[in-house]
């Protein structure tokens, strides 16, 4: 048994220590967003945030995560109360099949948390490890730019307005 903190909540996990985080998220915690894509750390569809950094959950053994903060897409917002990055992807219609999108969003979110105003080059460089097969790249880039703007606006707004959004 180990304790895993995901999206602000502590969970008691009964998994072998070398189990990749992805399987714990999907099978034990029944979270949908992090996706199995390759199990090899080659495609990025399993990307989550651990202590502020984008991490490939399919190749990260769960034993390394004791005491760390894991954030998945579910932890950012919901369909009715979306986080800025989620709103941005909806507004830009930045998905076709959408299978890679959760991973893209988490990597972009990690970038925006440490760099609120990234350049286009920085966004492209950051997303390099993540693959999209439908060819939604242009929209993904636009959505990340829009998310940066939305976060900027949200940061300037009074707290009550943020809650109301």
């Amino acid at each position: 048994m180990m304790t895993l903190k995901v999206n602000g909540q502590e969970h008691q996990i009964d998994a072998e220590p070398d189990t990749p985080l992805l399987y714990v998220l999907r099978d034990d915690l029944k979270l949908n967003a992090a996706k199995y894509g390759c199990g090899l750390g080659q495609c990025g569809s399993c990307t989550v945030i651990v202590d502020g950094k984008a991490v490939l959950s399919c190749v990260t053994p769960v034993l390394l995560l004791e005491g760390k903060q894991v954030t998945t897409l579910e932890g950012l917002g919901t369909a009715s109360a979306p986080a800025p990055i989620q709103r941005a992807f909806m507004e830009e219609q930045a998905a076709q099949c959408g299978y890679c999108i959760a991973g893209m969003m988490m990597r972009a979110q990690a970038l925006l948390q440490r760099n609120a105003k990234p350049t286009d080059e920085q966004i492209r460089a950051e997303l390099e490890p993540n693959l999209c097969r439908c060819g939604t790249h242009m929209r993904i880039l636009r959505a990340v730019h829009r998310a940066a703007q939305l976060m900027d606006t949200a940061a300037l707004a009074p707290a009550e307005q943020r809650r109301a959004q």
Partner: protein
Amino acid sequence: MNGPIVDRRRLLAGSGALVVSFSLTGAFAEEQGAAAAPPAPKLPGSLEKSPYLDSWIRIDADGSITIFTGKAELGQGFKTAFQQIAAEQLDVPFASLKVVTADTKLTANEGYTAGSHSTQDSGTAIQYAAAQARALLIAEAAKRLDVAPESLHTENAAVIASDGRRLSYGELVAADFLHVEADADTKPKDPAIFKVMGQPIPRVDIPAKVTGGMAYVQDLRLPDMVHARVVRPPSYGAQLADVDAAAIEKLPGVVKVVRDGNFLAVVAKKEFKAMRALAAAAKWNETAKLPKQDDLLALLTTTLKSQDHAIFERSDPSVIGQKTIEATYTRPYQSHGSIGPSCAVAQFADGAMTVWTHTQGVYPDRAAIAEMLHVPPASVRLIHTEGSGCYGHNGADDAAADAALIARALPGAPVRVQWMREQEHGWEPYGPAMVTKLKASIGADGKIADWNFAVWSNTHSMRPGGAGCLLAAQHMEKPFAVPPAKPLPLPEGGGDRNAIPLYTFPNAHVMHHFLPDMPIRISAMRGLGAYHNVFSIESFMDELADLAGADPVEFRLKHLGDPRGRDVIEKAAEQFGWHSGQQAPQDRGYGFAFARYKNLAAYCAIASEVEVNRETGRARLVRAVAAVDSGQVVNPNGLTNQIEGAIMQSSSWTLYERVSFDEHRITSIDWQTYPILRFDAVPEKIEVHIINRPGKPFLGSGETGQGPAAASLANAIANATGKRLRDLPLTRKRIKDAIDA
């Protein structure tokens, strides 16, 4: 009222509730649809095969309305488009509708979701069915209110009289109100008054996809579900020599090892680990069976026997060419490369098999699975549930069969089968390798005098028509044989899709060398033969323009009569800023290409700008400008998304992609061995300009960009380097070698 109202009232008497009567109605509609003789004149879209309105629309007494389509949402966004079509034609709020997609229990049999047919076939059926339903509702209201139908109008799911009296759709329907055949004379609304169609309404599936909602079959979690992994042979035809299944079954969490001949799978309570243990325990005997990867030209044009068909012939002996050139173009086997490997969930309970699958064809895949299991199709239900984008026939159908075969061995338990990355890459049926040989002459007038085109290709569809197309069935102890391949018939064609030029040439000769033997497992991949044929034709058009000393855009227009084709060419050229005599900056090049997909679906022209690094050979698409005409536009944002995606995906195929193999095994088994486009190669800009054709039929657009994007890119590389590359993919090394040659 049109068509016979089958006397189902008696059949349904006593069944009472609408829900029950509906599920019966669905079944009846399907059977009658299959048996009905085609009425004359021809009904629009899929109404031809499933003419009863209640196969498409259900209106309940409480006013709720459900739209049914036999097509599968694959990420193209048509579910939203169909909802728009129905909302428009029924005059109901968009958000009030529910759309049910491919399900063998609920929806019409619309075959495969393929060939850019969804909106053309199913969208058209829904449009006419909804328009007719609205007319029937008006007629019913007129009767009840005792007024002329012309005095009534519809609004917000109700029929309203001039005196203000109002009957909601729910009040107007009885159990079998919509169980009538489609009327060929139905007139959909005038596009001038569209409020919902033609609008960029946000996709209904995106909110769940960007918030971690249940969106994919991978996310399906049924009570007491177990996890299964298939251990596939290491190569085609490998035989399982030995496996100690008992030792694996003793491992903690393992539920069962399922073996049937060379089909081997392990079922466990948790999905991690068990498969690796079983894979390690299995010993296989392999045979060297695969051809030489580096000699596809010889393989396709010499080694494999062909069936030769002259598919187009035009002759005008008075026109004689003066300058002649010829060229050979090749395409390797290419992978669909879904980001999410295939997955399916199956449950065998009370003699019935239910499979949740991302197959593109619930009915054909059901027939194949039923055959494999030796059970009647009626005892098997396939429910389409979205998966990762497939772009054709990937591992979806095979994963569904795997799940069914394993579930049969564990009655009651829902079984989730998840393919691994190397399985998807190693076992999916690839897009076939192709060779084209072209020869043409320019006459004194600078126009093409004669044109010869020959294509060598396997079929482009081995989709399940029977169990023999399913890996599980091929690997069973009593295996099903792979059925003989058949060429797909023209006008749509397979290997010869888009082989016949849309341009007008006085002399033209087009040959299809169909190759029945398939040394590598292949099937349908987005665009089928059109990808390579358009790449070849449009590359060669540039070679000929060069020979004639003409501008590529002007040269194309000189040979094209089709006015809608001319419009997209002119639009793309104008928006790109194309002009005769243009000169790209140093190490950059401009390219142009055009096609009408299948010569009968959407028109697409693409102008590209590339940058080539002469030191490394690396080519990068800098900018692409597309113009598309897909008839009446339903959702411009969705259409743009499809064309943008086609350009990006086709660029990836064209610059990087090739399935690799040695004599035993497929060796491109992950993203390192099968690299695809990444963000460092994403262009600065893609523009899509839509030419809307209000009131014109929908023209399939999901695949129309694949060919033009490839040729436009190749032409731009030739423009930048002065070197013509004819072998796909146009890799860094090939470009560098061409520059250095």
